Structure formats: structure tokens, C-alpha cells
């Protein structure tokens, strides 16, 4: 019992920077939702049930253009396919001793950011850590969307701009510390960022959507790294991420 509470509290604490970033992004999302013709309730419902910024922004575009339901389904599949990769990674991270049904609840909250902080945990991951973070982050995401719809112009642009970098700052806080001691990780981070920049700016390749860019680069770079620098991780060792 104690351990669950401790995990939950730790999750809530790490959920704070996520909540700040989510608020900024979802506020902008709310403004877009209003322009697409959604009511505040509909926009809130969308945010609460989806928890995916890229997917929701794309959905708003589809809704306002009157796309078919099939188009909606395929677009969501393509944009959100990266979560599949994250869930594969987390399937090995989640504590095998925690009851199976937790996996059904836990998986609803696999966002880029929850994935980030969950991977950052040393050793096995308790689902209660994720629940704690979600308890803080999801209300911010949902309420931010609501506010964006009903009061899109009350938020000072400067504050919104500053908060928009919060999630990226958090990603940096996750990847940099372990790279200090591990030269392979440091190299991987630099190569990944440079490759993403190439994919972003080079002609033709830059047509690849951001969702697929993430998937392709992750599979290729992590794949090559796994072949060249396999981790010596035997049973019982708790140093895998």
C-alpha cells in the first residue's frame, strides 16, 4: 500500500511540468477547436478521451473539411502509430508483478510525455507512477482545451509562448543526465537530433509527416545502436531504462 502511494505522489510531482506544457498546448488546441466549429463540451470531450496533440489538431482539420469517418480513422492511425512503439518499450518496463488489468488502464495514458517520464524511472515501473502524473496532467489538458474555446483571447501571448517550450524542456531533462556517463547515448542523441533536422529541411524527405519521421528515425537509429552497442543486461540487473 505504502509503495503505491509513494509512486503516485512521485508521479504527481513529475506531472507538474507536463501539466504546464499541456495547458499551453491545449489552450491553443481549444482556439483551433472553436474555429473548427466545436462547442466547449465537445472539445473537452475530445481532449479527455484522446490525449494526443498532433492527433487532435489533425482531427480538427478533418472535421472542418467534413472528412469521412474512414478518413478520420486512418489519419489517427497514421499520426498516432508512434505510440505503438512507445507501448512496446513500456511493455518491458512495467512491473511484471503488478496485476494484468493495470495494463488496460495504463495504456490509455501513453502520451509522449508520460512515456518520457516513465522511461526515466530506474528499474521497473509501477503503473501508479503514471496514474499520479495523469491525475495532474489530464485535468490541465482538458481544462486548457475548454478555456481555449470559451476564452481564447484572455491569455497573454508572452505567457503562452513561454509555456509552449515546457514539454521540450522536460524531454531534455530526461535525455541529458544519463548521456553524461554514457558516450553511446550522448552520440545517439546528437545523431538523432541531426537526422531529424535533415528530415525536416531536406526537399522531398520533408514531405514525410512528423509521426512517420519519428517512427522511421527511431526504428533505424535505435536498431543500428542495438546491433553495434548491445546492452549487457541479464536478469536481475536493474539498470535498464
Amino acid at each position, binding site marked *: 500500500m505504502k509503495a503505491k502511494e509513494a509512486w503516485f505522489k512521485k508521479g504527481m510531482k513529475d506531472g507538474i*511540468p507536463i501539466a504546464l506544457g499541456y495547458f499551453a498546448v491545449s489552450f491553443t488546441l481549444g482556439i483551433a477547436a472553436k474555429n473548427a466549429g466545436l462547442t466547449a463540451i*465537445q472539445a473537452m470531450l*475530445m481532449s479527455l*478521451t*484522446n490525449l494526443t496533440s498532433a*492527433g487532435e489538431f489533425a*482531427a480538427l482539420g*478533418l*472535421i472542418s473539411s467534413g*472528412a*469521412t*469517418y474512414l478518413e*478520420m480513422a486512418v489519419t*489517427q492511425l497514421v499520426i498516432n502509430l*508512434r*505510440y*505503438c*512503439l*512507445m*507501448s*512496446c*518499450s513500456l*511493455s*518491458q518496463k*512495467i512491473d511484471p508483478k503488478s496485476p494484468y488489468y493495470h*495494463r488496460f488502464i*495504463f*495504456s*490509455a495514458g*501513453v502520451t*509522449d510525455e508520460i512515456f518520457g*517520464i516513465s*522511461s526515466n524511472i530506474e528499474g521497473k515501473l509501477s503503473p501508479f507512477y503514471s496514474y499520479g502524473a495523469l491525475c495532474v496532467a489530464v485535468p490541465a489538458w482538458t481544462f486548457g482545451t475548454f478555456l481555449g474555446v470559451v476564452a481564447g483571447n484572455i491569455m497573454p501571448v508572452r505567457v503562452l*509562448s513561454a509555456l509552449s*517550450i*515546457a514539454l*521540450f*524542456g*522536460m524531454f*531534455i*531533462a530526461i*535525455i541529458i543526465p544519463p*548521456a*553524461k556517463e554514457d558516450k553511446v547515448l550522448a552520440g*545517439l542523441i546528437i545523431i*538523432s*537530433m541531426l537526422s531529424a*533536422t535533415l528530415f525536416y*529541411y531536406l526537399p522531398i524527405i520533408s514531405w514525410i509527416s*512528423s509521426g512517420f*519521421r519519428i517512427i522511421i*528515425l*527511431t526504428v533505424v*537509429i*535505435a*536498431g543500428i545502436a*542495438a546491433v553495434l552497442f548491445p546492452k549487457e*543486461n541479464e536478469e536481475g540487473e536493474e539498470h*535498464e*531504462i
Partner: protein
Amino acid sequence: MKFNIYLYIIIMALITYLIRMLPLTLIRKQIKSKRIRSFLYYVPYVTLSVMTFPAILTSTSSIWSALAGFVTAIIIAYRGGSLIKVSMGSCIAVFLLEFLI
């Protein structure tokens, strides 16, 4: 024909949930292959790096404030700052720089 917004939302939510849920529930056992384990070990670092850069540069109102936030985050993270410190530090750097320019 007018489409129903609630139906759109249900379809989105369902697809997105399935993508997240299937790997987590289908892969129950610990993977033994050293190669796959190593791959999954590297996945978060590569994914988070690819998502951060260059996207971070266009996240704020100007590339200069974004750069300031990026550099600030790296410095605080390198010194072992917590998630919230690094995150808020980069926000403050952006805010201050946008105040100046």
C-alpha cells in the same frame, strides 16, 4: 450529409486507444533476445531526441527565445536539475528573452 462530431470523437478515441493498448497487453513476457532488449532500451532516447529537435525551435514566438530556452534546458539538465527545474528554467529563459526583444 452532415457528420456527427461525437461519432468522430469516438472513432478517434477508439483508434488511439487500440494503438496504445495492444502492444502493452499482447507483449506480456519479458523479451529474452538481447538485440530486441537493447533496441527497446535505446527507443526512448532516440524518440525524445527526434521529437525535441528541431521542433523546439518553432515552439515559441521567435527562434531566438526558443534557442535561449533550449540552451538553458541543456545547462540545467547537465547539472542534474529535476524535471520541473529544467522545464521551468527553459520557460523563464524564453519569457525573459521575449521581454528584451
